[in-house]
Every structure is written in structure tokens, then in C-alpha cells.
């Protein structure tokens, strides 16, 4: 189980998660479909597809830098969180 690497990394990842939520509330590309990305995908859709890809990357970083430290008890299926913080 990987422990959090540094407080800075943790803070940056959580800032990225908040940024994802804010960026989702886009009012840009609202009333236009141009440019067409790859010649067929309206920009408003392409933006949100990109957001899905970025979300996956941000969550990957979260699992690397913010994953909760879980201590294993004697019973391998039993575990305990150390700090009450999942991230």
C-alpha cells in the first residue's frame, strides 16, 4: 500500500480534482459547434470527452499521491484507515 508521497503533491492533486469540477461547468463553447475536432466532433462534445480523459489522469495521480494509508490487521481481509482522511 503506497503512502502519500508529500503534502504538496496531495494538495496539487486535490486542487486538480476541484479544477476538474470547475472546468466541467463550462459556459464557453456553449452556442457553437465549431471548430469540429477531427473534422466531425463538435467542440462542446470534444471538450467534455477531453475532460473525461483528464479525469482519468487526475484520478490516476490521486491513487499515486493521495491514496489513504490502510493498515492490514492479522486477518488479511481486515483493514483500518489511519487518519480518517481518504485523500
Amino acid at each position, binding site marked *: *500500500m503506497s503512502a502519500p508521497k508529500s503534502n504538496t503533491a496531495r494538495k496539487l492533486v486535490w486542487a486538480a*480534482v476541484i479544477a*476538474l*469540477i470547475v472546468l*466541467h*461547468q*463550462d*459556459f464557453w*463553447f*456553449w*452556442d*457553437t*459547434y465549431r471548430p*469540429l475536432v*477531427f*473534422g*466531425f*466532433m*463538435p467542440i*462542446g*462534445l470534444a471538450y*467534455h*470527452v477531453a*475532460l*473525461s*480523459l483528464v*479525469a*482519468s489522469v487526475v*484520478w*490516476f495521480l*490521486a*491513487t499515486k499521491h*493521495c*491514496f*489513504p494509508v*490502510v493498515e*492490514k*490487521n492479522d486477518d488479511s*481481509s*481486515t*483493514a*483500518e*484507515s489511519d487518519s*480518517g*482522511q*481518504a*485523500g
Partner: protein
Amino acid sequence: MTAIYIIAGYLVLLLLLGVYSNRSFKGTSQDYFLASRGIGPFLLLMSLFGTTMTAFALVGSTGASFKGGIGIYGKLASSSGIIHSLCFFVVGIKLWSLGAKHGYMTQIQFFRDRFNSDKLGLLLFPIIVGLVVPYLLVGILGAGSTLTTVSEGKVSFAAGSGAICVVVLIYVFSGGVRGTAWANCFQTLVFIALGIVTFFVISTKLGGFAAATQAVIDNEENAHKLARIKIPQLVFFSYMLIPLSVGMFPHIFQHWLTAKSANSFKLAVVAHPLLIMLVWVPCVLIGTWATSAVINGEPLIPTDLKNANDVLGIMVLKLSNPVLGGFLTAGIMAAIMSSLDSQFLCIGSMFTNDIYLHYFGKKEISEKQKVLTGRIFVVAVVLVTYLIALYLKDTKGIFTLGVWCFSGFSALFPLIVAALYWKRVTTAGAFASILAAAVSWIWLFANSNYGSDRSYIFLGMMPVATMIIASTLALVVVSLVTRPPDESTLKKFF
């Protein structure tokens, strides 16, 4: 009838999988309801994804895109990619840890213990079951009506929905949550693959991606569907609160508890947004393209179309062949069943653990008896919901209940977050939050003419926003004015 033969073959495969999963069954209630907490990363990802994606991901997304355009992706798909993973990460892992430590099998057990109140469990139980049952009914009604349509009436609603219920019942009955996880994995792979194949076949027939989009641009009436001009921005933004429901779904809670370790969550957290994208993008594009698709000078979709959910089926029928149509219908059934199975099992588990064993199981009960009780409750839940579905099969409004069920679960989300992270939350605060969620839900639901007004918004936003504000305010204010929880409770959970 080709489609029906393909679907029948698919259902037989599922039955075999269910019977096979029974070979791994260890005979204990822990194994039946939680797979002995032994599910690894890939199966957990597939279980969680298959359970959260219903038929709406295929037919509903296409229909919604046909009606309103590409905005549906941002409203439901990209938001879910962010929020579902957030729920897995912030709520799921912590609950898994506490569940393993204290031996919980259901949400109610956790809340009873966390707030040291039996009555809290009694209040939550009917609310949670009451919100899951309509969600279950939507699945059964969708399966029955799809099979009747595909068979052109040769398979009745009662027979079609009954067959789906029986197949799900058999693999849930025999394999418990392990059978459910295996079936979900298989079914999720099926509906993702079929969605992608369908997308390429249809786009080729429409002359390619660019030509299909150009046809929409050239169509003055529908070109706006390539943007979001007609969607109110506050409605779009407040939609993001609906996926928070995943944090309170009892069937997702049950899947979380099956994880082998905290590490098992990592793949689900990272890959969930990608899988949503893989399923939704093709369907949203097909739906938008369908608005302007023309074959031999005639619109592909009849101008007098009554149900937008039929768009995907019509596109497949007119642009491919009966074999792909059959496989696509099997994919739709897969999406429906991969949610139904977890819901049936979790309601059965709640009746067994939260009612029967909690109130009537004071005497020593063997593991065999616990499993038998669980199975009896699963059979009863399937039978009762099937009979309700038969009774309601002609009630059109039932399909609109889905978003209201989700909103109700979202309104309870502040409670689970506070229970896990806020030491100052009190039992009175928890009661107040649940009651505020319930009262605001009922009031708004009544105001929407009991769901009949499909475009109902309140204060310019989706009703879920008001519900979450009400439940959060009640939780915080009442907690702060009541006595803090005792040290022993805090020590147990923090």
C-alpha cells in the same frame, strides 16, 4: 426472430455462468453477500461499472441526444466520470475499511453503529428500499418492453420480463454476489463491445463520421443540437449533483465491501471515466446524427416518432442486419441485468440482515440458515417487483422516476460524508438531515406533478440542488446545537 434466438442464447450463457460461479461458493453468509471480501481490481471495476450503467447508457443516451443534442454527454457522462470516481475514492475506500474492521454487510448496519441508534436504521430502511424499488422497476419494464418490440409482439411483456427476472434470479440465487460480479463482468464487456461495433457499422452506412455530422450542420432545424444553445446553464451545472447518488446506493455499498483490499479500488477509480466515455460517446453521436440521417431521400427516423428511446433500435434495424440487431438487443439486456442483479441481491441482503437477523435472529443461527434466509428474500424481492412491474407496465410516468430516485440518494450524500469525516456530526443531526432530504424530496416531487412534469426545475436548477442544500443545512445546524458524540464512538470511527 433472429434477435430472439440470439438473446435466448445469451441468456443461456448467463445461466451457465451463474451455475459455474456456484462452484466457488463457500456456503457462508459472508461469501453469499460479500464474496468473502475477495474481489480483485478487474472484477470490482466491472461490477461497479456494470451496476452504475443501466439501459439508459445505450438507448436512453441515444434518445436524449436525438431530442436535445450533444449536451447530454456533459450533463450525465463527463460529470459521472468525475463524481463517481470521487465517490469510490472518498466514500468507498473508507467504507470498505470500516466494513472490514467492524464486519458490516449493509449500509443500515454502518449507520446504526456510527450514530448508535437503532431508530436511525428504522428510518433509513424504508427510504432506501423505497428509492431502489422504482429503479428496479424501470429495469424490468425496460427489459419487458424491449423484448416485446424486438419480437414484434411474439414475446409478451409478461414472458419477456419474466424470463429476464428468472435468469437474474438463478445466477444471483446460486452464486450470490460472486455470481453477480462474474455476470456483471461478462455483461459489461458485451455491452461495451456491441456499442462500439454498432457505432462503426452505423457511421460507415452514413458515409463516415464527417459526412454524418455535416448532414446535421446542413439541417437548419437540428443544427443547434451540435451545441447547447437550448440547455439552461444552471440546469446543466446542477446536473452534476445527481451522480453523487452513487455514494449512497446500497448496491454500490455492497460491491465496495466485496473488495479484496483498498488497492482493488485503484483500477475502478482510474478507469471508470474512460469506460463511461467508451459507452456514451458513440451513443450520443449516433443520436445526434439520427436527427438528420436520410436514406433514399427519406428521413431515417420517422417524423412521427413517439419514443426517442427507439432511435438506436431503428438505426440498427435500418442500417445493419438482424444479427447485429439481435446482438445489440442482447447488449441492452446485459446493461439492464447488470444493474438488476446487484439491486435484487442488496434488497435481499437488507431484509435478511437489517430486519430478520437484527430483530428476529437473537437465537444462534447457522451459516446455512442465514444463506437460505438470504436466498428466500431474494426470491421474494424478485417475485414482488415482477408482479408490480406487470401491474404498472402501461404506466408511462414510471420511467421518469429514475432521476427522482437518484436525486433522493444524492440528498443523503451529505450524511455519508459527515458520518465518515466530521467528528462533530450528531445523531440528532443525522435524523434532521434524513428528514430534511425526505421532506424536500416529497415536496418537490409533488410540485412536479409527481414526476409528470419532466422538465421541472426549481430556482432555475434541478430539484436535487435544493434537496442537498436542505439536508446539509439540517445536518450542520442541528449537529452544532446538540451535544457532541461521545469519545467511544469517535474512537471507533476516527
